């Protein structure tokens, strides 16, 4: 009984305690780690990954998976640059075009999976390849920036509008001047919205039901098709939001950016399983998962760990979190009966 209580406590709060322990450790060990600037830096480093991870969380909730989010984000990056630099459109048009592109990709993913019965991993893998290729075609594989030579021989005259760059570069005042960057605010807002949607609305409840037992949910009158497609559309739109913010920060359509987005955000979503012992995808867990990785990397960097150890650290965190989720939770389930 005593052991059972301790185990339950460990499963529920273990990951948050670990997170608090890390923060305390780095605050003591690395000078300059504790402080608003450093905290904001961590948030900023995980904001875009976190937004993508919140999208993939929605697909995980319905029992699916979206591997195309990284390429949707980079496509949005290239599309926004193309809209402004080559087609000389305004920031609003560029943003709307990107969001529509994300929704469309999500819709196609959803239709492939629901209507064509393509397994989710394969459908979104295919979409990933397709988008990686597609985003290079208009510029013949080159990055987009003002003054570049276009395929027809002319020069691109457009510029990234200041309003668009504001999205990536503006900082709001909070306690200190110019503290919080826009992407961090967007991340927090998206996090709250996704959390509210999944936890408090009936749509979220039905999506969890579909992920847990799709047949039973359908027999209870749930429109399984519509909710699954919706989940992929949310994922696609959030991925394009991430891409827009990345473009706004970089200020150019850089073909090589965003390579790590997919793995990092999927990892954040999966680490989220372990938070509060949920053992299922959840918005709060995903946000904490993203922050966890951010804090660890920031702390290690400040303690002079070389950059090339970063992926190793992320992978190790993911493996530990998965052990937390699956091994410990199943022991709890086994012991409870």
């Amino acid at each position, binding site marked *: 009984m005593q052991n059972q209580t301790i185990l339950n406590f460990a499963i529920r709060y273990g990951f948050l305690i670990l997170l608090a322990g890390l923060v305390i450790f780095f605050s003591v060990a690395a000078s300059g780690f504790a402080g608003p600037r450093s905290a904001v830096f961590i948030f900023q480093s995980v904001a875009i990954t976190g937004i993508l991870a919140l999208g993939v969380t929605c697909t995980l909730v319905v029992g699916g998976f979206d591997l195309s989010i990284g390429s949707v984000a980079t496509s949005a990056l290239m599309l926004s640059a193309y809209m402004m630099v080559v087609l000389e459109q305004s920031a609003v048009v560029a943003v709307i075009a990107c969001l529509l592109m994300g929704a469309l990709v999500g819709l196609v993913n959803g239709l492939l999976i629901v209507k064509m019965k393509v397994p989710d991993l394969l459908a979104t893998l295919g979409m990933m390849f397709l988008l990686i290729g597609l985003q290079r075609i208009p510029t013949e594989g080159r990055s987009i920036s003002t003054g570049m030579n276009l395929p027809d021989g002319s020069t691109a005259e457009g510029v990234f509008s200041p309003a668009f760059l504001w999205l990536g570069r503006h900082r709001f005042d909070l306690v200190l001047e110019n503290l919080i960057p826009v992407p961090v605010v967007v991340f927090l807002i998206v996090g709250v919205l996704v959390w509210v949607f999944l936890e408090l609305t009936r749509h979220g409840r039905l999506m969890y039901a579909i992920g847990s037992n799709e047949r039973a949910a359908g027999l209870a*009158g749930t429109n399984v098709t519509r909710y699954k497609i919706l989940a992929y559309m949310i994922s696609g739109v959030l991925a394009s939001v991430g891409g827009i913010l990345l473009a706004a920060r970089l200020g150019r359509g850089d073909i090589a950016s965003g390579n790590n987005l997919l793995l990092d955000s999927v990892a954040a979503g999966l680490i989220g399983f372990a938070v509060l012992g949920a053992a299922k995808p959840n918005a709060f867990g995903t946000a904490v998962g993203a922050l966890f990785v951010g804090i660890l990397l920031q702390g290690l960097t400040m303690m002079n760990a070389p950059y090339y150890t970063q992926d190793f650290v992320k992978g190790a965190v993911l493996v530990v979190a998965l052990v937390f989720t699956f091994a410990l939770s199943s022991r709890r389930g086994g012991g409870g009966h």
Partner: protein
Amino acid sequence: MTNAACTIAGVEKAFGPNRVLRGIDLTLASGQVTVLMGANGAGKSTLVKLLCGVHQPDGGRIELFGQPYAPATPAEAIRAGVVTVHQSINDGVIPDLDVASNLMLDRLADAGSGFFVRSRALRAEASRIAAAMGLDLDVRAKVGDLGVAERQLIAIARAMARHPKVLILDEPTSSLSATEAERLFALLDRLREQGVAILYISHRMSDIRRIADRIISMRDGQISGVFEDTPLDYEGAVTAMLGHGLTSVDITIPAPGPQVLRLQGLQLSPDSPPIDLSVCRGEVVAVTGLLGSGKSALASILFGLAPAAGGTMTLNGTQYAPVSPRDAIRSGVFLCSKDRASNGVIPDLDITGNITLPFTRRHSHLSFLSATSERTTARSMIDHLGIVCQGSNDAIDTLSGGNQQKVMVGRWLAEPSQVLLLDEPFQGVDIRARRDIGNRIRDGAADRATLVFAAEPDEALEIADRIIILNEEALVGEHRNENVDLNRMLAQISGQEIAMGLN
């Protein structure tokens, strides 16, 4: 009697607290077809799994030709000469391989068969087996491209290729046409002459009449009847399988209200005879029949899971043709599905979430769920059905089977319905839960039409005002639940009455 191939003595098996087999004594003789009959949950499948090495018995012993027989794995059982064709065809074949590879799979899996596949030798051997089976197939065809019946025959042919001494067939004809089934029976006749002991599990009376030398009835984990005198007493076997002492419960049949649901010339499949049926408000009608009699098909059509092959349905006088469960629910037709684990329970949701699932709209404002509203409904259902739990937020998988089933029934009792369909609502629940569920179904029946689908006639007698009997997708009997002629009812269930009429 011929010599015994396999002797089972006092075999017991329990899964947790659930005693599935309670002392089985059974002898399979060489050169004889023993038919095993039993309702769902009687323990047939468990017995088969003990014989083919999937499970090990808890007590008792099994002998094969006088030697102790205790296979630890299916492979060991096959080596000993006990070969099984399972009910689910896809257990028997690998769709991505060709016919020859499928027929010779065991040879390929054999450790001593070498590293490289010798295609030509393989195909020659496979053709020989196929020819012996009367299978007219290109052995190079991919099994995935073949029809269900052909796959089933391949699975059976594969079993033959292992030269069985004891052959177990679990519902082998369920996907075969009459001609194909006859091919199988001819083959079984030949094997019987060769001295193979055959255990044949089936519900189809036509199969049983054709092939059985002996019938064993099973009920609640025990042998409830052995029939080996010719002519075989088929009706007695069905009675033994469904249980004697059918208890008549005191049912006061209310005066029927206005007609709610009406089926006119409804056909369950294109070749089946039309069904006419009407159900009134306040009435509880039980639909009973053996497996495959069309109960589930009828429930599926009424709930919009499958279209009717013909005929019309009306609900409160207007045309009713649901295209999806959503559509049916919107019209006020609810179905509490059978097999709650796969069709009902949402393991990740708590009791409340499981109960309110179909009607979240009622419990939310602007899509935001109201915890209070949900809790009120859940608590009232917990009290109403007597669900034993700590509270309405308990995880569903902490409940016992009977209580989970109560949650499933509560899900559909929580909102008023026009027609409530309950498919096997007493499946896997103990007697107490069964009483509770039955009483609650009858309590609220005044405001709706209720249809209960139950394979067990005593469940039907326990709950219904009127009993409808289906056999091979035809409506063959209708009884008002007052002094029901049980023998006649059982004869109708087993299809005996029609057969006698035809002869």
